[in-house]
Each structure stands twice: as structure tokens, then as C-alpha cells.
């Protein structure tokens, strides 16, 4: 009994701790709330308690002592999510060999990448930061919240899918080892890319069976003498995890043919494709993509920058979305990331999406693709208080992000930032002056 009490107390303490460390309280008042999933609320308030949205509506009573953000005249949307980014990493490609499923972006997080600040200034609160596209099978990606100033570990979103990066087409087939070694690397063709992926999955299958056999023997009442576990192979582990359904594929692909091939591979081995990256020719196979329950994460425009993108069209995102594909707009860039809302707006002109449909491409849709739509992606009671506030409608070309909030914490405040920048510039000038004075 005593023991049970103790455990209970410990559990309560832990819960308390988690609650305490988890986000802030904040009341946002009197803005136009675009919830994305539950319509629009003019002159609405949002109450965030312990980092979680507790109440959305009009005239919410402010709890005592709570910090209040006045959003009069502003637009409040869910924090923007970039489904395909390479921010906050020390190194993006392990390009020396074609298969590098053993690498994990979690090992090279850099919470001090100033790109995070840039992203925050564009209302982005969450990114899926990925291995590059140099390898047919690359590494494990990770989902982060852009909590500038916190440690790398604090940024990790543990609720998200585990994803492994794949790449088809020009990038993996033209990659070479870096530095002094300039010999071409297998594979050099699309068929080679396909073959090497199949070969690795066959290896992984074999590997998995080896381990299953071992576990079975070990579990026997009288395990055989000299039973030794197989060698643990970090390159095959993630692939085996894919075959067991614990990791999903995120596959860089441009052309329709290579996407179809990859879908066929996924059926052959029974793994899940969460999303095709870029998918310029997605519009050609929208039906197949929908039928296989795959998302696409694309640019809004700027196609034809290389041969395999030559049949890309600005209507891709809008058309596919209208066909029922789960589409997100991504940045793939530390610069474009701060105007994802502009890119989303383009789908209204090209593809005829409604405002809300366009907003979905940078909020709830990427959230679904990353498996975090139950905690972020829209403004609903119970979801995280991850919010961006714009001074005009977020899809207006004149808009700008005024404030970015994660779990009730303000991580970007334009007014404050401008003031700080002014002070910093003043300080810089003084330092420069001193430097000059010292040199004379």
C-alpha cells in the first residue's frame, strides 16, 4: 500500500513537472481567427494554458496575471509547418556512398542555426528537417519545433512519424563522392537507382528474418547451445523498421514514371510512402497518388530549373489538391521558408483553390503528412498553442508576420525585433568606432 502511494505521488510529481515545463499561458485578443479546420471567427480570442489551446471564442475572460497579446485588426492562423526543410542541421548529405540509411539527422541538430529566426519571422513554427537528395536511400529525418534559444533536444517533436529519406532521379544518379574522389558512383541511371533500392530492401528482409529466427530460438525453453545474436547492422535497421511499419518513406521524386516505380516497390516490400517530395509531375498521376494514400510536398512555382523539372507546372499543387491529393507547399530553403504564405496564395491563382484550401497547404496538410495533426496544424481546443499572427490576411501580397508563438511562448515579435535590431546596430557602430579609434 505504502509502495503504491509512493508510486502515485511520484507519478503526480512527474505529471506536475511535465505540465510546468510544457509551454506558457497566453491570451490573444480580438483578432480574425482562421482556424483552418473549424471556420473563421471574427474578433475572436484564443486562450492558451500550459502551452495548449484551452478556449477559442469571443470575449474570453482573462485569467489573473496572464500575458495578453492584442491582435485587433490582425489575422490569427495556426503556426506554419514546412514539410521539407534542411534547417538547423550540421551537414545535410552523406554523399560518399549511395545507401546511408544508418545516418540520423537527430545526431546533427543545431539549435543555433540563425535560419530558425528567419523561419520564425515568416510565421513558421514547425519543420520537417531532412537529409539531402544525394542518395537513393539517405537518412532518418526529424520533426522540430522552432523554439529559438532552447536546446536541440527541446526542439524535437516526439509525436511525429519516423521518416526515412529516399531520392530518385537526377540527384542520386549524378552524385559523386566529395573531395578528391571524383569517380562516378553507382548508380548512374534511374534503373540503377531502382535496382539498388530493391537490393537493399532484400538485404533488410533477410536481416529481419535472421533476427526473427534468433529471437525465436532465444525464446525457446531450451535455447540451442552457442546461440549468438546476429551482427546489428545500423544500415539495415531502419529499412527493417520500415518493413515492420515503424518508419515511413519520404521520397524525393520529380517524374511520374519514377514515382510509379517507387509505388510498385512499396507494394512489393510492403512499406508505406508518406510523401513524395517536389513531385513536379504529380498532376500526371494524381489518381494513383490518391489511390495509394500518399501525400506530395511541392513548390508553388519556379519549375523547369533542370530537365526532370521541365514538365512541372504552376497548377500542380492546386490541381492535385482538387483531385484529393494531400498536398503541402514546402520551402526546401532557408530563405523561401519565411514566405510560405505567399507561395500558398499562388495556388488560388493557379488551380483556383479557396482561401482555406490554400491555407491548408501550409498548416493542417503538412501536419497530417508528418503525423502530428492531432497536436498542431489548426486552431482547435486541445491542440498546441502554435500560432502565427499577420497584420493583414496571410494570403494577401501585402501581409507580414507580426508574431510567432509556440506553445504559448512568443518566439518572434516583429515590433520587439525591430527595436532590438536598432539597438544592436547602434552597438555595432560604437564597436566599429572604438576599433577604428584603437587602430590610430
Amino acid at each position, binding site marked *: 500500500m505504502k509502495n503504491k502511494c509512493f508510486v502515485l505521488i511520484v507519478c503526480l510529481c512527474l505529471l506536475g513537472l511535465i505540465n510546468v515545463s510544457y509551454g506558457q499561458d497566453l491570451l490573444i485578443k480580438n483578432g480574425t481567427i482562421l482556424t483552418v479546420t473549424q471556420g473563421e471567427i471574427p474578433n475572436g480570442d484564443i486562450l492558451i494554458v500550459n502551452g495548449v489551446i484551452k478556449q477559442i471564442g469571443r470575449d474570453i475572460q482573462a485569467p489573473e496575471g496572464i500575458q495578453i497579446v492584442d491582435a485587433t485588426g490582425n489575422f490569427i492562423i495556426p503556426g506554419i509547418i514546412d514539410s521539407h526543410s534542411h534547417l538547423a542541421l550540421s551537414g545535410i548529405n552523406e554523399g560518399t556512398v549511395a545507401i546511408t540509411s544508418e545516418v540520423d539527422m537527430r545526431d546533427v541538430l*543545431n539549435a543555433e542555426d*540563425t535560419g530558425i529566426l528567419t523561419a520564425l519571422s515568416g510565421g513558421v513554427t514547425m519543420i520537417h528537417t531532412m537529409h539531402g537528395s544525394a542518395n537513393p536511400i539517405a537518412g532518418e529525418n526529424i520533426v522540430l519545433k522552432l523554439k529559438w534559444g532552447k*536546446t536541440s533536444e527541446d526542439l524535437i517533436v516526439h509525436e511525429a512519424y519516423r521518416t526515412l529519406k529516399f531520392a530518385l532521379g537526377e540527384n542520386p544518379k549524378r552524385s559523386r563522392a566529395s573531395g578528391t574522389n571524383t569517380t562516378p558512383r553507382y548508380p548512374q541511371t534511374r534503373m540503377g537507382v531502382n535496382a539498388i533500392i530493391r537490393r537493399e530492401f532484400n538485404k533488410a528482409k533477410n536481416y529481419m528474418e535472421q533476427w526473427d529466427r534468433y529471437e525465436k530460438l532465444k525464446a525457446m525453453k531450451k535455447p540451442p547451445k552457442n546461440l*549468438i545474436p546476429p551482427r546489428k547492422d545500423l544500415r539495415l535497421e531502419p529499412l527493417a523498421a520500415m518493413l515492420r511499419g515503424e518508419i515511413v518513406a519520404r521520397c524525393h521524386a520529380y517524374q511520374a514514371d519514377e514515382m510509379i516505380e517507387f509505388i510498385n516497390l512499396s507494394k512489393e516490400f510492403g512499406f508505406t510512402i508518406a510523401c513524395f517530395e517536389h513531385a513536379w509531375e504529380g498532376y500526371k498521376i494524381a489518381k494513383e497518388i490518391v489511390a495509394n494514400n500518399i501525400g506530395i510536398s511541392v513548390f508553388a512555382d519556379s519549375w523547369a530549373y533542370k530537365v526532370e523539372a521541365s514538365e512541372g507546372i504552376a497548377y500542380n499543387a492546386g490541381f492535385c489538391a482538387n483531385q484529393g491529393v494531400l498536398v503541402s507547399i514546402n520551402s526546401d530553403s532557408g530563405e523561401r521558408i519565411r514566405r510560405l504564405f505567399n507561395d500558398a496564395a499562388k495556388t488560388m491563382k493557379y488551380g483556383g483553390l479557396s482561401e482555406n484550401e490554400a491555407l491548408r497547404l501550409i498548416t493542417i496538410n503538412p501536419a497530417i503528412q508528418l503525423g502530428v495533426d492531432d497536436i498542431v496544424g489548426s486552431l482547435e481546443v486541445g491542440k498546441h498553442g502554435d500560432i502565427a499572427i499577420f497584420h493583414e490576411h496571410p494570403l494577401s501580397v501585402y501581409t507580414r508576420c507580426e508574431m510567432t508563438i509556440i506553445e504559448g511562448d512568443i518566439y518572434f515579435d516583429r515590433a520587439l525585433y525591430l527595436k532590438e535590431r536598432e539597438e544592436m546596430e547602434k552597438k555595432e557602430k560604437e564597436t566599429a568606432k572604438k576599433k577604428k579609434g584603437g587602430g590610430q
Partner: protein
Amino acid sequence: MKKQKIILSIFLSAILIIATLSVYAEVGPTYAIVHCTVVPVSGPPVENGVIIIRNGLIEAVGVFGGITIPDDAEVIEAGEMYAYPGLISAHTNLLLEPARPPSQTQGEASSSQQPDEKPGWQKAELMAFESLRIKKTTIEDLYKAGITTILVAPEQNIFAGQSVVLNLRGESKEAMVLKQPFGLHVNFVTARGEYPSSLMGTMALLRQSFLDTEHYRLYKEQFTKSPSGLKRPEYNPFLENLLPYVINKKPIIFNCANIEDIKRAIRLTQEFKLNSYISGANEAWRVVDWIKKAQLPLLVSLDTRPPNMSKYVRQGDALKKEAEESIYPANAANLYKDGVKFALTSLGLSKSADIRKNLRTVIKAGFPEEEVLKAMTLYPAEYLGIKNLVGSLEPGKIANVVLTTGKIFDEKTVVQKIFVDGMFFEVKQPSKKAEPTSLDISGKWKAVVDSSMGAMDMTIEFIQDGSNITGSFTSEMGKWDITDGVLSGNELTFSISANIMGESMAMEFSGTVDEESLEGDISVQGENAKLKATKIPDGGVEENSL
């Protein structure tokens, strides 16, 4: 004939006697250092003290008059002086043979070239001891900082190799060894032109190597016990080298350039239950919770320059300056205030002047002097597993004694005499002042540096103030500052604080110069390169400015 034999045998035995004598001579005579302030570190200072040294060990320490001076002792009058235990730098890359450049065939990488089967990162078998090149000047320079004991570790590659602990008595390397090998050194770096070319690849490689070592051991053990049904395991030289460290938990020293490296090291330590040391660590205060929780031996470098990826150096010059001048030098002080114990090392610094200067910087930032002393004596001795031998002035310990003109870390203090293993060395005093020069070398110079990596063009700009030279060094790799330059007659020396792909590196130049040309050697971490330069006439147009 017979006579000859007799003469020969007499001659031989004479040699023998001399040889035997020389063995005794090596440990030095008996010394009595008298009238000095003895700072034993392990206890309170003793005014008007005495230290008796015999057979290379400390025989007695006490107050003058309280200890009998042995008849056979050579008395060293040390009134007004302070006696300290020899300082220990628990991580250096000094005294090593320069790494051989990667074998390059002239012209194209030809097919005749033997493919190097072993990847470049795999240097676990490299013994610092084997690569030692005892340079007297280096040792003498360390004496000037009061350092008598160092750990020497190979520097490059992911698995850099195994270190040795030396007592710097300055003879054969065999005579200097205190611990061999000490530990396995691991860097969070990448390979060039081969796997792994990224840090994440390096992490995967480290994990796979540790896993493989465990599996190798398991298989071998099982096979030795009962081979039935098992294939005979192949001998794996790489994994054999890891066995003592991964399985028998000898020290693995992770070189940590930033907070993420520290966390990477701690994660690996927990995953594989390693006996890890964290070295470098000049951002340790920023992850003090991790450090405290992990409780690993911590070797903090006196090199207080902020790492390139630091948020403090990427948000404007004002903050960067603050980082260099006050934020990073306070690392040791902050750790101390947080109750963390650690050793200070000279890693990254090669000159005694820099070591002494940075010691003062660290003290100025708030790390108390008594603690600095412990961080360079008792604590490193403990971490290196030699605390029964060195680290304090106590009877029975090795006689590493430093005699200084004042408190050891004071700016004006000079190390005058030093005993290592009871052997007495007079410390050479700083060289004379620069000769006045009539040369004016200020202005721009066009330079070529020729190293094992190939030739590289640079532009040098000197600013001359009497014999003091400063300026900059511009190449395709960036612009680096020239510091501490001295022009003495036509002899020119200066340092360059270079930044190569995010890594800070100190380079030293020494050579000769006249009105138009300049020639000399640049040394970078033990490697030498030739530098030649010609003056660009004033008003001349630089080629690359077009």
C-alpha cells in the same frame, strides 16, 4: 695476443662501469631546495620551506630547520622563490612527428597507385608513443609555463589513435613515459573524399564500430568456450584495437568543440557504457546540466576562442567581440561556480606565452587561482591515473618541482628552475629584445605557400610599428589576422590565427625579409610549409581586385 685480450677486457669493463654510472646519473644527484615558499597544493603553503629530492623522488617537504639537510645534498638557495609541483597538461598534440601527407602520385591519380585498403578515419592503432619526436625547444618552452607532465595524443581523424603520458625529463622517449597507452582519442570530424563525409555519418560509424566490437568480443568468447556449430571468427585488427576501450573500459577521450559535441559524447557514453573523457569543451558551461549528470572527467582547454557555430559569433561583430573577450573566457569560472570539477589543458595552444596568458585570462574571468592550480596539478593527475606519482609536493612523489620568482600565475613571474624526475634544468629566459630595424615592410605582398596539399596564392598586408608587425593574410580560404609579429634585423616572425573550414588553427611564421622579398616557413600543427612573397609596389594594382 693474451695481453691484447686482457686490455680489451679491461676496456670493456670500463665501458660497463661508465654505462652503469650513467644509469645512476640519470636520476640526478640529491638536492635540497631551501628557503622557498613551498606550495604543495595538497596542503597549505609553507613559508621558508625545504624540499629534499633524492633518486628522482621527493624525500621530504617541510619548514627550514625542521628537516635535516642530507650531507650529500646539493643545496639550491631559493630564497624569495616559490616552489610548485610541476603543472600537468592533460591533453596536447605536441611532440608528434608531423602526419604524413596523403600519398599523392604526381599528375593524375594514376591506376598504378596502390589502393589504400584502410579508410583514412581508422587510425585507432596509431600510438602517439611511436610517433614521438622529442623536440628540445618544445619541452623548454613548456618549462617556461611550469609544465612538466603532458598527455600527448594524435590529433587527426575520427579514431585518432592512442595517447601517451610523458614526464618531460627531455631525454629518450622511453625514459619519459608515465602511462602508455593512456586512452583512445575520438574526434567528431569527417573524412575527406570518403565515407563518412558528414558528421551524421561519423556518428553512425562510431556507433557501428562500438556495436561491432561488442559483437566481435561475444563471438570470439563463445567460439573459444565451445566452437561447435560456429565458424571460426576472423581476426579484425581494427576491432582488436577497440576491445580494451569498448569492452575493458579504458578511457576514450572525445574531443568536443561545441555543446553539440559534448552531448554527442555523453549520448555515446550512455549507449555503450564507455569510460569517457570530455576534452576541449570550451562551451561546457552552456550544457552544465549534462556535464553534472554525466559526471565524466572533464578536460577543459585554455583555448577560449568561441567555436564557429556558436550563436554568439553569428549575430554581429559586437556580440562576437564580447564572446571572445568575456563570454568564452568565463567558461572555467562558470563551471567552477556550478560546482563542476575539471582539469585545465593547453590543447590548441602551442606556446607557453599563450598558455600563461590564457591562464591569467581565465583567472581574471573569475576562476580562483587556487582552483586553477588544482586544475593543473591534482585533478589532471587523478584523471590520468597518476595521482600517486605527480600533482603535488609530497614525500614519495616524483620530484617535479617548479621554482618561480613569484606566484606562479602572476604576469611578471618567471619560471627560473625546474626539476623533472629530480633532474635539474635551468630555464632559459625570454630572448633578448628585438634588434632595431631599418626595414619598412608595411604594405601588400603577393605570397605563395607551398605545402603537401599543393600551392596556394595569398596576399599579405603588413602594418609596421617599429619592430611590431600586425596585419592580415588573405587567401581563397578567407582573411586571417597576423598577430604578435616581430621584425628583428631582417628576421621576421609572426602568428596567424587561421580559420579553416570552421576550425581555428594557429600558424607560426619565421623567416627572413628584405625590401622586396620574403621567405620562410609556416608551421601548422607540426607540419611545415614554405612561404615566399614579393612586395607589391605601393600604388600597384592587385590582380584579383579587377
